[in-house]
């Protein structure tokens, strides 16, 4: 640790002040402005707002639409989180084995994560196209008729979840694979000497060693899935009949389709408050991650 002394120290200090200033301006200002907007009634992004106090919050919270969107969001986040972590763990364990062509399969397993969401959405929309989609045709051949992916609420929700699982599981796979590779082999040897079978070694060595990483992955993925706007919007626009409309889409609809910017800002601020509470409680339960951050 050094203190500020020389000219180059001063130069670095100035650069630091500028960088922090820019960063705060870019991150803090929008958040504060969002909270400010949520107290105004404003019909467009260029018009003047009218102070309405908590009216936006009261009207948003009193609609069943908000609570329904909240429920849909929790459902999407939890289901895709569960599948992503389950599949990610299975994939990581598999990729940790030795088999012919392992490097190639490891590479392929990451590819979906690299794709822009719009590409993922288009690829799935093409596979599921109502008349020409490959999966639609296969479903028909298997005797299911032509599935109406976009009109059936359950199918639409499943489609959103499967597409999210497809593209975001690699994040879990790669981080868990890295964690698996850092487990010392001697732990497995010791467990073997103590008479542990494959399951015993998995439950008493692998899982505890992966736990710190899992704790962080679950939090990050859960929150990101709760926040995901693009995959849902591109696939279903929140439909059919709001079956896939969650809070990000509701906020977007308020601000950009119903000309109620205050309402949109209120929805965004409410989901921000909810997520902050979740993060706070989560780190109270698992201080492990908190310790990592504090070092």
């Amino acid at each position, binding site marked *: *640790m*050094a*203190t500020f002394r020389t*000219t*180059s*120290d001063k130069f*670095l*200090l100035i650069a*630091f002040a500028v*960088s922090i200033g820019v*960063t705060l301006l*870019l*991150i803090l*200002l*929008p*958040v504060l402005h*969002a909270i400010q*907007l949520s107290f105004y009634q404003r019909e467009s*992004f260029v018009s003047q707002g009218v102070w309405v106090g908590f009216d936006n919050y009261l009207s948003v919270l009193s609609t069943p639409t908000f609570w329904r969107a909240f429920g849909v969001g929790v459902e999407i986040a939890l289901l895709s989180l569960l599948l992503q972590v389950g599949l990610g763990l299975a994939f990581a364990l*598999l*990729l940790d*084995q*030795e*088999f012919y062509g*392992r490097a190639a*399969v490891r590479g392929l397993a*990451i*590819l*979906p994560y*690299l794709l*822009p*969401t*719009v*590409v993922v959405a*288009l*690829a799935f*929309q*093409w*596979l599921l196209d109502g008349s*020409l989609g490959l999966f639609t*045709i296969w479903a028909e051949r298997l005797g299911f008729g032509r599935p109406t992916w976009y009109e059936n609420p359950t199918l639409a929700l499943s489609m959103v979840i499967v597409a999210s699982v497809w593209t975001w599981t690699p*994040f879990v796979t*790669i981080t868990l694979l*890295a*964690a698996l590779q850092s487990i010392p082999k001697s732990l497995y040897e010791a467990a073997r000497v103590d008479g542990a079978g494959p399951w015993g070694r998995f439950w008493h060595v692998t899982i505890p060693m992966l736990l710190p990483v899992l704790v962080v992955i679950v939090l*990050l993925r859960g*929150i990101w899935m709760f*926040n995901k*706007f693009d995959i849902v919007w*591109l696939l279903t626009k929140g439909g059919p009949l709001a079956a896939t409309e969650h809070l*990000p889409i509701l*906020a*977007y609809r308020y601000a*950009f389709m119903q000309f109620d910017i205050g309402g*949109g800002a209120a929805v*965004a601020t409410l*989901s921000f408050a909810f*997520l902050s509470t979740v993060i706070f409680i989560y780190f109270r339960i698992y201080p492990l991650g908190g310790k990592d*951050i*504090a070092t």
Partner: protein
Amino acid sequence: MRNRSLIPRLLVSTGATLLGLWSFFPIYWMVVSSFRPERDLFGTPSLIPERIDWKFASYRNLIELTDYPVQFLNSVQVAITVALVTVLISIVIAYVVTRYRVPGKMAIIGSMLYAYMFPPMLLAIPLLSIFAYIGIADHLLAVVMAHCTLSIPLGVWILWGFFQTLPFHLEEAAMVDGCSRAGAFVRVVLPLSAPGIITVAIFAFLLSWTDYIFALVLVTSDTNKTLPVGLASVLGSYDARWGELMAGATLIALPLFIIFLFLSRYFIKGLAAGALKG
């Protein structure tokens, strides 16, 4: 490995094949569809194309009839600017925070992690309001600034972890040998942290290149759109021309695949570092 019996080996290779298919099939189908003659997209599809359209009509239509080329250039400009700005700012912040006594430094690092988790609309709605107020809404500059709100926290976070593992005595040795701190920084710290810096550049580029939300909210004119928004609006405006759409999707993905092919090491390291830390 050699002494393992047949059945577990068979299970592992079956699993690996399934994993490969699951990950690659939608991408394969996208690429294959973009190279098929249009009439082959109708009717019963075969898994392996009987014909390739050597005139590449899908690609030609996309490039000649839509704003795709302009939007491709927009995306390149935005993503490269975002990567440069992110690298510059996050090097400075992460370096000063790890090497000097900075008041409230854990608050800085903590808020970077926190910013990872902001709902997108919490940033997009006020950003449009601010950019409309200062008159740069619908400009690429607005998109660049919006992307930096995501990429700078990520960059500071990754480089903070990186600089911490870099032993301070290396710089001290350079300074004892007569380097100024700036000299030590340029000659010792930067070369040693090149892998971390490349990782940050890749992730910033990736974030910007793949973003849909901010570009959707901030940009309205067709010639200022970035690729993801432009392509999504092609789907809306035409009667689903799947050949052209798949050609467009393939072209967006291509630069990412090329980067990944050459720099996968950094990519995987970054994922691991980002997740272990946050």
